[in-house]
């Protein structure tokens, strides 16, 4: 009995020694850890957290760049004005419409592309490389490219639709018309970002073990049943991550719109509206309020996704 009890005690004592030596090392490690982290933390605090705090503060003031009047605290005034600002709500509407169009189409196309690449066929490597091309091209470049393709007289899209396939009778100025411009730009973004979605979903697909499909086949499930009963549920984490990233990116969209339309009033997104007030009109107070509002919307979307899809985030 005594030996049996003595045994663990001896081991603990034996273990105690390296732990004591280790604590010296661990103290050194702690010191080093914080020293090494310090530059990053200082940078982040200085250029990200501090401006964030300032934005919050500015949104409650009437700060203007280059103004002679002293900055005053105006409470929730900026927000009150913002809520009644018709141009703002039209920007919100444009942004959400754009987000809905692009996320839906990117998902459908991205899933198809991911499924194709996930299957074995000749030229798969080529396909994977080719698929990434749209994503590798800078947004500004691809926006200009598409602008040229959309041209209502010399553009290739007009030529294809009117002269080659006879789908349309006459030319359509896709980019200029308010009714079509949102779809035109949606198509550009879909083209550009489908590879990204496909890549994320592909990573998820490749995590699905093959024997699950074997089991499903043995049980007599058809291909379509397999897709909806096996692939889709197992793909949920990947879908979740993709959805969150894509939606947030679409809501924050700035570059495609700016490169294709400039700051055209009928196609302003929230981010462009924000930039207009901040930079062009130098109205920092109101601009900050817009920033905070966008921030809020993004937060709500993330929370909504987390609660609706109930997938644990990373």
């Amino acid at each position, binding site marked *: 009995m005594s030996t049996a009890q003595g045994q663990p005690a001896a081991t603990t004592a034996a273990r105690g020694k390296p732990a004591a030596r280790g604590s010296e090392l*661990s103290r050194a*490690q702690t010191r*080093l*850890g*914080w020293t*090494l*982290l310090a*530059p*990053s933390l200082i*940078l*982040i605090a200085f*250029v*990200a957290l501090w*401006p*964030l705090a*300032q934005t919050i503060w*500015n949104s409650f003031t009437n*700060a203007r*760049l280059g103004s002679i009047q002293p900055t005053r605290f105006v409470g929730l005034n900026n927000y009150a004005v913002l809520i009644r600002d018709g141009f703002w709500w039209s920007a919100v509407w444009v942004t959400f419409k754009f987000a809905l169009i692009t996320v839906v189409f990117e998902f459908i196309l991205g899933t198809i592309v991911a499924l*194709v690449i*996930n*299957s074995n066929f000749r030229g798969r490597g080529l396909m994977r490389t*080719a*698929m*990434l*091309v*749209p994503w590798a091209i800078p947004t500004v470049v691809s926006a200009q*490219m598409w602008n*040229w393709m959309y041209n209502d007289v*010399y553009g*290739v899209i007009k*030529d294809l639709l009117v*002269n080659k396939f006879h789908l349309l009778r006459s030319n359509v100025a896709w980019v200029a018309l308010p009714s079509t411009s949102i779809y035109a730009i949606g198509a550009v973004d879909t*083209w550009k970002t489908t590879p*990204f979605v496909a*890549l*994320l979903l592909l*990573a998820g697909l490749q*995590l699905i*073990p*093959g*024997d699950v499909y074997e089991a499903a086949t043995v049980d007599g499930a058809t*291909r379509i049943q397999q897709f909806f009963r096996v692939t889709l549920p197992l793909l949920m984490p*990947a879908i979740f*991550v993709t959805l969150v*990233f894509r939606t*947030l990116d679409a809501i*924050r969209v700035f570059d495609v719109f700016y490169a294709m339309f400039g700051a055209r009033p009928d196609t302003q997104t929230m981010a462009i509206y*924000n930039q207009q007030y*901040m*930079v062009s009109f130098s109205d*920092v107070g109101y*601009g*900050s309020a817009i*920033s905070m509002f*966008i*921030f809020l919307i*993004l937060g709500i979307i993330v929370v909504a996704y987390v609660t609706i899809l109930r997938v644990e*985030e*990373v």
Partner: protein
Amino acid sequence: MTARRNSIVPRILFYVLVVVILIYTMFPFYWAIKSSFTPQPALFKTPVEYFPSQLTLENYRQVLTNRDFLQALVNSTIVAGSVVLLALLVGSFASYALGRLHFRGRTPMLYVILSMTMFPQIAVLGALFTMVNQLELYNRLTALIVTYLVFTLPFTVWVLTNFFKGMPNELEQAAYVDGTTPFQTFYMVLPVNRARFGHHRFVGVYRRVERIFVRLVVHANAGQAHRAGSNLPVPSAHRINLRDSMGPDHGSHRDCHHPIDRVGVDLPTPHHGWPDGGRGEGIIEGRVGARLPRPYTSQGAKS
């Protein structure tokens, strides 16, 4: 998998789909290249030409003799170069601390930096703009460098932390036994990661993003296993062999059938930047496949 089984018809349909996808992704790109070689007047001609009837390098000559463009090129190079160097320098410090050292507050810090990658840039835009103005940096490259640095730093830290985590413990343990200080150790293990750093520097942004998101998905799925796995004392030789098991010899690794044996194998080896030996092509299979137990990967399924 899809194309192998049935008769010839689905197979043809499948390849039609492949061709359609290829045309969809490549055509605008082709159009841009075609337009760049077409002389100005020929661009404004109807009907549209799908294959250029005359080629010219005039457009390229114009662009390359345009001073503004050349200046822009120089600016971009300066900004990109400094951001990458600074991000690697500062980021490698932080990620070594987060990936290799054990200290209080490590996990919260990791999450702080992780959450920064989702940071809405719009929220700091205004204040940053005022700050840049106040510091009289408006329209200067310095302002751009600092801003980009902060927006890429969390990304860099995150990627590099994972690399450091995947490094075999033995290297450091040997160093500690030899009596080095932790900082000396950091300095010594750095060369092991050189291949990674090099890639980090030179591959396009999309590769970086790609890797990140592969990881993100992996973590969302097997986060717990990965975290547990990264602390497991798996002999380094064994780990390195797992990398090589992507190659012809994979029979000898059947003994590791638990997922945890397989995780954390994406350690940097000096000679192979990518799992497939540098081409970066099979990145997704290589990386994700390496995390799965052998029977689950494509080669193993047959055996």
